[in-house]
């Protein structure tokens, strides 16, 4: 069959998702590029992905557990609680940051060749995912060595990873568009990530929030539910998790994703004019 393209003002909506599918090889190749570039020029290479979460965990154990005497969920060692929260949070913050910068980083492509621009944020997830897998393996080793058994809840783990992916794409796409238009957004992103770190239950458990006046507002944050759920998958029923929150988490994540994709689609044809 002949390949027919129509170019018109306002974009060719109906072919977009088809184009995206036709370009799936490019998605793969761009992902591979990001991964191999990431590890090519570093002295320690993969070791960084191992060292970073371990060092962050040590600091947090020192500050929150030894100095501030903060306690985790009863029956769960504090370091394990921190490391599990950190694992999924790092996945979120890395992918979110990379998606937000994906268009600017690929600006040389934006001005010289066409493909559905969604490929850029999508491919930028790869590096974050590889890091996540590494951190996750460290967590597993750590858990087994420390003598704390893994829970069977782990079979639900993929659901929470997918949710994390959805929410980081939801937030990331929005910021990716803004980042092209206003360059100051790039400086705002690390700050947002830092705030998020304290707003989300990483160094502490959501149990502490239960019954407080701000509990409902707190739980509107979809990442709270994801971190709680992720922990529950790995550390079992002793970890605090409110299964009811799963509904709102999923719903909010999907709504944010859909709005972001629509916004991205609306703006993607103007990227080239601002780069």
């Amino acid at each position, binding site marked *: 069959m*002949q*390949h*027919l*393209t*129509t*170019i*018109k*003002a*306002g*974009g060719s909506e109906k072919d977009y998702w088809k184009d995206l599918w036709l370009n799936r*090889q*490019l998605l793969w*190749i*761009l992902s591979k*590029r990001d991964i*191999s*570039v990431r590890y*090519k*020029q570093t002295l320690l290479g993969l070791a960084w992905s191992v060292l970073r979460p371990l060092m962050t965990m040590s600091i947090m154990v020192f500050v929150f557990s030894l100095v501030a005497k903060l306690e985790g969920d009863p029956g769960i060692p504090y370091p394990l609680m921190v490391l599990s929260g950190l694992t999924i949070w790092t996945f979120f913050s890395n992918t979110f940051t990379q998606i937000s910068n994906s268009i600017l980083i*690929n600006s*040389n*492509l*934006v*001005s*010289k*060749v*066409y*493909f559905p621009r969604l490929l850029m944020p999508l491919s930028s997830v790869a590096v974050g995912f590889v890091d996540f897998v590494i951190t996750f393996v460290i967590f597993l080793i750590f858990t087994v060595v420390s003598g704390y058994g893994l829970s069977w809840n782990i079979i639900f783990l993929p659901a929470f990873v997918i949710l994390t992916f959805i929410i980081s794409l939801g937030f990331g796409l929005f910021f990716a568009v803004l980042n092209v*238009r*206003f*360059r*100051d*957004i790039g400086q705002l992103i690390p700050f947002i990530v830092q705030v998020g770190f304290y707003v989300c239950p990483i160094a502490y458990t959501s149990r502490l929030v239960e019954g407080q006046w701000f509990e409902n507002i707190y739980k509107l944050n979809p990442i709270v539910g994801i971190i709680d759920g992720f922990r529950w998958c790995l550390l079992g029923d002793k970890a605090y998790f409110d299964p009811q929150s799963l509904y709102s988490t999923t719903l909010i994540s999907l709504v944010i994703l859909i709005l972001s994709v629509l916004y991205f689609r609306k703006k993607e*044809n103007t990227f*080239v*004019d*601002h*780069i």
Partner: protein
Amino acid sequence: MPVIVAENISKKYIIDHQRKSGGPSSFRDIVSDTVDKVFSRKNKKDDFAEKEEFWALKDVNFSIDQGDRIGIVGHNGAGKSTLLKILSRITEPSTGQIKIEGRIASLLEVGTGFHPELTGRENIFLNGAILGMAKSEIKQSFDAIVDFAGVEKFLDTPVKRYSSGMYVRLGFAIAAHLNPEILIVDEVLAVGDTEFQKKCLGKMRDVSESGRTLLFVSHNLTAIQALCNKSFYFEKGRLIDQGETTHIVTNYLSKVSHKMLEKHWDDIDHAPGNDQVRIKSFKLVPEFQDNLSHIDVRTPLDFQFQFWNLEEGANINLSMHLYTFTGECIFNVGTQSEAFGKGLVTGTCSIPGNFLNDGSYVVSMMIVKDTSTILYNMEEALIFDIEDYRENVTWYGKWPGYIRPQLNFSISQTEHLVND
């Protein structure tokens, strides 16, 4: 059968005069602008005046048949690149629509998306995929690409260690193995050495001979004439003429070649100068031959310069500089110094045909007193273009050099090998 049909294509840009630099706006700008607006109570009309519409393309209609090789000519800013960007789907038109039948590949740059940290091998796959080749296609032509680029030894070296020549060769080799039904090529020939340009043109001739459709933007009219059967002529965003290449190129040349060939002032009081000299006129008179209406490399050029001398008995000589458009001086010639009475003085200078290369040139004229004091210097006095002309040559790249003199250069057989 038409493979590309464009109807009423326009592209509008908004030029914001408020912004001082053309760079990316920041959130801060918006905040400060808003604050300004609130406090200065500017009325809306003023705001409007600061934003100006600019039509990079306006109501462009055309249809291209399968196998057509279209050359696109026009000045810088005529809309050629915008058209290519719209056809390559990098930017979308403000109005109108284009229907394209067949796989389209556009080559706006050599080595798009090359990553300096990746090896040559990795970049071949990356760049190929970016240009729209399937992995199987790249694998199939991998050896041919490597061979064409001549980088076998450096396949596993990061391209950041490549020389710029190798980089460009590899980039073009990949593009050359694209197999689209429609190929769009921007001025990529302007980069790289002569050898590379030759390769590019050769490859493009292959494309055009294999019955595929080609769109080609270039300032190199010789290349366009050699490769393209039809041409589009753009001016200020409009497609003002289309048709057979020879016709379009002649039309284009007759319009470009009158840039600033004459300047004159009839009123001595308002003429440029000072109380010692006043300029009357400066003009370039080409000696057209064979009914030509534009200057090409064969055309002899006469310069006539007239000025009023206002000081009795001044010792005056003229000095003329010829520069390339980019500012390199090609030569400087001067007259003998002579004493002149008050009144009109005329200087003439002739540049023979078959001396200057094709290109754009700038002339400046200096009036000098006592061979040392500059009385008046008329900078960028005249600007003119010389077009290319070649006979019995099958090579179409840009002719190198500032000048292209016809020297006595001949070859002949001086000895025969005798077979016995």
